[in-house]
């Protein structure tokens, strides 16, 4: 809360800069519109203007600058336009009762969310499993850990189409599952690394203590390693869910997905409707914010219940 004022100020500054950038970014489009409606524009002809700098265009056509703030297909929309589009494709549609139609970002957000959650679950599960194995068996540690790192250097985008085909071959239709797999692929790594650290966080004397009780491996795990790793777990889950969302969106971008926020971005690109891209981008940002915040709240509640400050 202490940070509220500075954050708002910084946001305001960003919005201001953004707003100022709209004019130069969109001046060409604005002049095209002006020219089509019969106004005089210097110089004439869309393509002749390609060679003129935006600053000169703005200086020469001051009367038309305002058009840059209301283009249908702006290179850079104003914050207001983005908000308007976002509202039109979420809230407004929900009010009309169309919240779940395929034109609504709520629907597409839900598709993305679903894949993200599945990927997150799968990735977290794999990450936890790997971490437990790594902590308990040296062979696994030595064999797996380097490959876990290497796995993250593989451009997952390249695998996306193949994952789709492979999973359809084993009888899984649709793109939900492949997307979840990609998102799990990006998600498992932070969980694995975080949990290896977490499960190893008990120091020697804490482990020795249990040894003096002659505790079994399982007791060491359940009574010491697991609770000790909880703070690490949450930290990695927060990174993990963000990674899972990136995974889903990357999975939607080049795989020709037809629904989901990534698909909206892609289709916005194909149809030349930048507003749709921006709205989908912001929807994705909001989704990420919600997910991370939810985990944050869960973390606070859990840790407080466990008595950790």
């Amino acid at each position, binding site marked *: 809360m202490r940070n509220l004022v500075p954050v708002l100020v910084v946001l305001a500054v960003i919005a201001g800069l953004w707003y100022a950038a709209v004019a130069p970014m969109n001046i060409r489009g604005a002049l*095209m519109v002006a020219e089509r409606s019969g106004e005089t524009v210097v110089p004439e002809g*869309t393509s002749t203007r390609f060679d003129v700098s935006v600053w000169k265009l703005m200086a020469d056509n001051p009367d038309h600058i305002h058009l840059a703030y209301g283009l249908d297909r702006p290179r850079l929309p104003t914050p207001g336009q983005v908000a308007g589009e976002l509202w039109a494709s979420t809230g407004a549609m929900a009010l009309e009762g169309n919240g779940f*139609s395929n034109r609504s970002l709520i629907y597409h957000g839900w598709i993305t969310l679903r894949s993200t959650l599945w990927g997150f679950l799968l990735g977290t599960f794999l990450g936890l499993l790997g971490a437990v194995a790594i902590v308990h068996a040296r062979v696994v540690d030595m064999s797996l850990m380097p490959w876990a790192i290497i796995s993250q250097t593989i451009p997952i985008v390249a695998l996306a*189409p193949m994952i789709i085909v492979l999973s359809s071959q084993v009888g899984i*239709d649709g793109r939900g599952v492949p997307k979840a797999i990609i998102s799990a692929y990006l998600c498992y790594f932070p969980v694995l690394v975080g949990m290896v650290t977490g499960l190893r966080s008990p120091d020697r004397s804490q482990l020795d203590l249990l040894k003096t009780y002659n505790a079994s491996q399982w007791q060491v795990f359940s009574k010491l390693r697991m609770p000790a790793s909880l703070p690490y777990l949450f930290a990695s889950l927060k990174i993990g869910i963000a990674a899972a969302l990136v995974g889903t969106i990357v999975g939607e971008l*080049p795989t020709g997905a*037809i629904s989901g926020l990534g698909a909206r971005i892609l289709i*916005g*690109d194909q149809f*030349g409707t930048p507003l749709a891209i921006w709205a989908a981008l912001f929807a994705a940002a909001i989704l990420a914010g919600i997910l991370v915040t939810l985990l944050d709240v869960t973390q606070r509640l859990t840790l407080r219940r466990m008595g950790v400050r």
Partner: protein
Amino acid sequence: QDEVTLQLKWVTQAQFAGYYVAQDQGFYEEEGLDVTILPGGPDIAPEQVIAGDGADVITTWMAAALAARERGLGLVNIAQPFKTGGLQLTCLKSSGIETEEDFPGKTLGVWFYGNEYPFYAWMAQLGIATDGADEDGVDVLRQAFNVNPLLEGQADCISTMTYNEYGQVLDAGISEDELVNFNYLEMGNGMLEDGLYVLEEDLEDPEFADKMVRFVRASMKGWKWAEENPEEAAQIVVDNDQTGAQTLEHQIYMMGEVAKLTEGSEGALDPADYEQTVATLLSAVSEDNPAITEEPEGAYTTDITDEALGGDM
């Protein structure tokens, strides 16, 4: 009812109106078929989908299908609803392009993903280098499936389909007299677009062949219905669009343009068209872009269309 899965080459749009109409109007049902239509998109290769058993039949361009065939995937053309193609290169006059001679030194946007073969064939014919190293060659830009490069002044020419991207260029505010179009078909480099392809080995099964006969018959019925009722067909397409991004207005435009391409076809492949496609491809075999290197065999069959359409004729 027999199940059939159709993988389209692109997203749901009037380009595939015939199939959506056939499904919507119950033509498939009449033939005892339960058809699932899978929309495609960039980086969905129908050839790969069918290889992975994800579909029974696909629509694709003949060049891509022949290329896949040479790589060991036994694709066979069973029908060709598109008589002519809509692919063209759209250039800005202001870039100084009037004719083919003006290309050297220019930047041209090309679609890849199996759509590049006609372009390379054409350039080979013109003797223009495409590797970007040659002064007198052209710079090839792998164009995403949009028209931004032209609008942003990043390319002098871009690929468009008459029924889609060309409309987008006009919509964006560039007028027709600022543009020059090179239609591949008119240049003699046309290649068959959007045919129906199945796997050779599937076709050996008479039951499957029979299914395809009925499928092609119903699909063509859908196409003809769409040609006659463009507005309704466009509406059907929009209703089937899961992206929620298609507009009726644009689909009506597209339907009108697509109808011009399907008009001449009853569904059967004209062997002469096939020969021309193969000849064009073979005329332009190059290191970089070998679509095919030798004359394909058994790449099409007219058996299905003969049986499907024979009755009507």
